[in-house]
């Protein structure tokens, strides 16, 4: 039996392809019903309990348990803010964009439920600047939700007040890192902050702040609908529920697929995404966005389940942002590594030394290697340079940097060494002195 999508957060946009983003289309298919139930029950603690019980983990990349994150806000400290990380910038990740463009009301409802649970009255959406259509539809959704009483000073006639401010980013990948996002939101240059203090204690404008991803919050209404315990039954182990995977690269049907966690990479790539064109084989794939280390087209890797902890513990890779990039046999892994390095060198914010200088250095060496000017000793040197950015070269990252951007740039090098050392040595002249 072939695997099917399990649609919760992508249900409406598939069911109502013509009006899923409008208030009528959304309300007509159940939007804001969970919000209504939550505010009339008036029990914020219960919402927090449900989310905790659901086992929901952040869909932005780090996979931190959402309920636990919410519980870090110091009691009795107001104002506090909810910030939505909609700066989806991880290369090959395109799920939040779809959710924003095609189901903005689901996100607004999720924000409203979360804000109610956290007892905060002002939420910010930090939206990737390039999302022009998303900006249009999200702001329209907020305006129309407000007009219907789903937002504003008396949400659905209760005392709960909530406003949502949409802020467009200016095109920096680093602003997807939560503290850089907060800096940028405050009008400063987007550079990560030193932690501690953590955003839960001193976040936006030095107030307690929760930063959640778009998909995470879009999931919250569904958890409320089915209860946390029911949601936790979906998925596998500590990877509960469903996730959207953005599959791209050498596949016949690239796109977003919402699946129950626990299916295998092979099912995702071959069955849902239609397999590799021309009957070629998977040479390697990046399982969780550009920051992750790679896996290869072996049975061991392809048959591994989409389980955050399993892939982490077994292969040292992460599901990250849920972006699976597939490369077939014709691909030059050095060229891929160089292109990724170029991205990270371009996006390094420049605040801390190892990332600022290291990403540029790595890019230059990989460029040389990809263009036939490398030597086998380069790979060894790159590994040590990488070790100075991410000591131990493990995942989860250990880092000499402030944020994980620098270590992310090291993943490709480690993967090259792990899987393609022989190929590289053959190409660059194996006999040359190391």
């Amino acid at each position, binding site marked *: 039996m072939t695997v099917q999508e399990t649609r919760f957060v992508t249900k409406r946009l598939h069911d109502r392809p013509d009006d899923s983003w409008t208030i009528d289309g959304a309300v007509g298919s159940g939007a804001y019903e969970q919000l209504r139930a939550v505010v009339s029950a008036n029990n914020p603690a219960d919402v927090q309990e449900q989310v905790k019980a659901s086992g929901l983990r952040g869909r932005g990349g780090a996979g931190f348990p959402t309920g636990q994150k919410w519980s870090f806000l110091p009691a009795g400290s107001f104002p506090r803010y909810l910030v939505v990380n909609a700066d989806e910038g991880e290369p090959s990740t395109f799920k939040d964009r779809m959710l924003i463009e095609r189901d903005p009301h689901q996100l607004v409802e999720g924000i409203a439920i979360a804000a109610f649970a956290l007892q905060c009255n002002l939420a910010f959406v930090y939206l990737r600047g390039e999302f022009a259509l998303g900006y249009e539809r999200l702001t329209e959704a907020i305006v129309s939700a407000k007009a219907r009483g789903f937002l504003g000073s008396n949400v659905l006639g209760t005392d709960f007040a909530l406003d949502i401010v949409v802020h467009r980013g200016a095109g*920096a990948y*680093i602003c997807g890192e939560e503290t850089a996002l907060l800096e940028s939101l405050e009008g400063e*240059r987007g550079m990560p902050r*030193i932690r501690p203090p953590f955003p839960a204690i001193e976040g936006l404008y030095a107030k307690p702040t929760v930063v959640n991803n778009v998909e995470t919050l879009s999931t919250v209404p569904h958890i409320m609908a089915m209860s946390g315990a029911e949601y936790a039954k979906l998925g596998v182990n500590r990877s509960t529920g469903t996730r959207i995977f953005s599959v791209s690269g050498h596949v016949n049907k690239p796109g977003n697929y919402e699946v129950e966690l626990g299916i295998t990479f092979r099912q995702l790539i071959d069955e849902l995404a239609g397999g590799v064109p021309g009957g070629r084989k998977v040479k390697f794939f990046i399982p969780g966005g550009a920051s992750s280390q790679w896996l290869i087209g072996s049975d061991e890797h392809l048959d591994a389940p989409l389980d955050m902890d399993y892939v982490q513990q077994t292969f040292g890779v992460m599901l990250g942002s849920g972006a699976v990039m597939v490369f077939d046999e014709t691909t030059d892994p050095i060229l891929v590594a160089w292109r990724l390095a170029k991205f990270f*060198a*371009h*996006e*390094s*914010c*420049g*605040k*801390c*030394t*190892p990332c*600022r*200088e*290291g*990403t*540029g*250095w790595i890019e*230059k*060496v990989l460029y*040389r290697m990809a263009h036939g000017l490398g030597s086998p000793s380069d790979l060894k*040197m790159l590994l040590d*340079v990488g*070790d*100075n*950015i991410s*000591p131990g070269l493990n995942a989860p990252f*250990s*880092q*000499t*940097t*402030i944020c994980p951007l620098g270590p992310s740039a090291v993943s490709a090098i480690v993967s090259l060494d792990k899987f393609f050392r022989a190929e590289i040595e053959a190409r660059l002249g194996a006999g040359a002195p190391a």
Partner: protein
Amino acid sequence: MTTTEPKPGAKPTVATVTIDGREVTAKPGELLIKVAQEHGVYIPRFCWHERMKPVGMCRMCLVEVEGVRGFPPACTTTVTDGMVCHTQTDTVKKIQDGVLEFLLVNHPLDCPVCDRGGECPLQDQTLAFGPGESRFTEEKRHFEKPIPISDVVLLDRERCIQCARCTRFADEIAGDPLITFVDRGDRTEVLNFPDHPFASYFSGNTVQICPVGALTAKPYRFRARPWDLATVETSCTTCAVQCRGALQSSTDRLVRFLGVDSEPVNHGWLCDKGRYGFEYVHSETRVIEPQVREDGALVEKPWPEALDAAASILERTKSMHGPGAIAVLGGARGSNEDAYAWARLAKGVIGTDNVDAQLADGLPAEVVLGLPRAQIADLDHAAAIVLVGPDLKEELPVLHLRVRRAAVELKVPVIDFAFDGGSIPGSIAMRCAPGESGALAERLMSAVNSGAAVADDPIGRAAAAIRERDGAVIVVLGRASLAERPDHTLRAAAAFAALPQVGFLSALRRGNVHGALELGLAPGVLPGRVSLADGRAAFASAWGAVPETTGLDATGILRAAAAGKIHALVLVGCDPLADFPDRALVREAFEIVGSVIAVDAFLSDSVRQADVVLPVTLWGEKQGTVTNLEGRVQRLGRKVSPAGSAMDDWRIAGELALRLGSDFDLEQVDEVTDEIAKVAPAFAGATAELLRRARDGVVLPVAEHRSEIVLRAGGLTILADDGSGASWEPIRAVRDADETGAAAATDRSAEQDGEAHANATDVIAAAGPSSTPNLIVWDRSFGSPELPARDAYALRLVTGRTLYDGGRTVASSPAIAALARDVALLVSATDLARIGVDEGAIVKVTSQRTSLNLVVQVELRLPAGIARLYFTPDHEGAAELIDLSAPVTDIRVETLR
């Protein structure tokens, strides 16, 4: 100096921290990097600076802390009790190696031609903590080699290591966020904004704290190698804050002046005028040989002839017209010793009390000396700070930084009387109109004293701020405008003096004006903060004689000269034609007065009027002591030989006294210091020996501040905190284990140096209260004259000083000369529209005194009805328009036909 009692159940006040296996104690919450350093473990760093907030970006100070995941930066990690930290493990060492290799990836390694070479933290720390070689073989990044980011500072972006010290200083400390990071990744560069240069009065500090040679300043570029420099510690005398600094010379020329971190005074910062103004010492235009007027022209003469000529003028005038026919103007530029010797010559030998170190731009001596004093450091924990006076940023820049820090970082409420709202962010802006400070202060005080709830207006908020917080209110008191009489300021002072806890900081600006006033260079006072009346007996016995009657101040002297009653005028480092606010009066006085003797280093317009010119040594060429605006006495250092045959002012006074039949018997400058310590009550005990040993100088009166004296064991040495002598870290005068100051200080230094302690006890015992005259106490209430009604067409004039004002120091220092502000009448946009001209047009400005043509410009923060005209020593302007006898100066502005 304030200690808080630990509350019951409070967290421990002492943390035991283990650093590399050694247990040390520290205060919980202190930064690990600092605690380690204080206990001899130097953790390398680039971005961390003790006087700025830590940012943890260079990653050089990463360490391992047991129980903490990863590698926390020591500069952002606060110590807690029981913390165990490792700074030298193999992992840490590899990280340090790695960070230094990264820093050198794009660093050009042009060390042989870099001014920083030899005192470069990047060099030094690479040697100590870095790899021997780099594996980087790619192309480094390239930028255009140094680009000017201001008239003084140049930026080499290739050398920059992006530590953000400069940008953070500009934003956090100076409040001039004119430079910032541009672009990202390894293309990140520091830049100013297009068409907006880094025109900060404090830009030089960024050059000093830059850990590489990325920022350089014109005066020092390619002048010297650091290992060739000779250094002496001294106090800056550009303004009355008297920042501590390290003055450096090479081949007998001053080449650089760096800030020294003095906790009570300047925290290591300098303003650019102080930092770069030293160039005037080597100006080609200096007078370096004595000159005497012969057949209408000044001609060079040997010293004996010139001194004889000067003495005979004084002798003749005194015998023909009496001692009161002689007047001495000036003395605020020199040292305490200069001021004392000139006071003794004028008052003890000649017998005249017509002596004034101020030029109608200050406050009466008895006010400055008699009000309850505050210290600069009191600003840090004041209940509130009240600014009644000039814009500190323009006149006392480093005091401005301290007030700004108190306001921004320490959240001390600042009540600013400035009519334009002032320069302190978040202050309570009283917007006091010209001439109304006295009345406004009284209204504020009655709001403070009334039990009623305060209104939500500036007075109400200011009153609430004063009422709400414990501690003393610090009033920074000076002249907000030379175009109004000082009476308004005195009335304000009298109002605030009634507060139960209050201290005043005098905002007089001239370099050593406080030293001059303390040592008697003002009418009615004698050295050591005593009045002529009270000190008469004591000084008659010390000096032989004192004047019979109280003399005239500068305005009185010039008026008397113009009236033919003053026959000989002595100018001691004083240029009234440039500096006195009524230039016509000065011209008249010079026309009528019989003889003029000038003791100066430059042939200013005033000095050109002289019959005898006696050339003097300048800052950097002389030793002695100076007194700052809080009454702190510190030593001057001498670094270069005097130009030509220039002589110290005090020695000239002694030579003239000898020729007038009185032998001071003072051969060395220390003997003058010691005589001051002996005869001047407020200085009692402030001997040359004590001042040499007192790390932060002594505060007057010495008897009341004995407990604050921190003695150092050695002599005057400059040490950077890391001991390497580099300038980029806060330079401490002397490494001192004791940072708490206060009473414990003397004991602590005793632990270090038994002999020092013995001496300290002696010298401080000698500083005990003496039986000599009472010190001046000013406690009068004061009224101020009614303000004239302002007619609808008039603008009320405000005239303050500006930092770069075209005066002698600026004009003779090439690095900053071009920064002198253009002369322009500044008005609000409303008034400009009313006048009906475009910005930049020339308008006719008329006061009671005269009319002038001036360029008019808009200053956005000015309120309507007020015009600002900065005082210009070198141009026609305020000194032509101001009427010294009027309560305020109103002007009318008309278009030219």
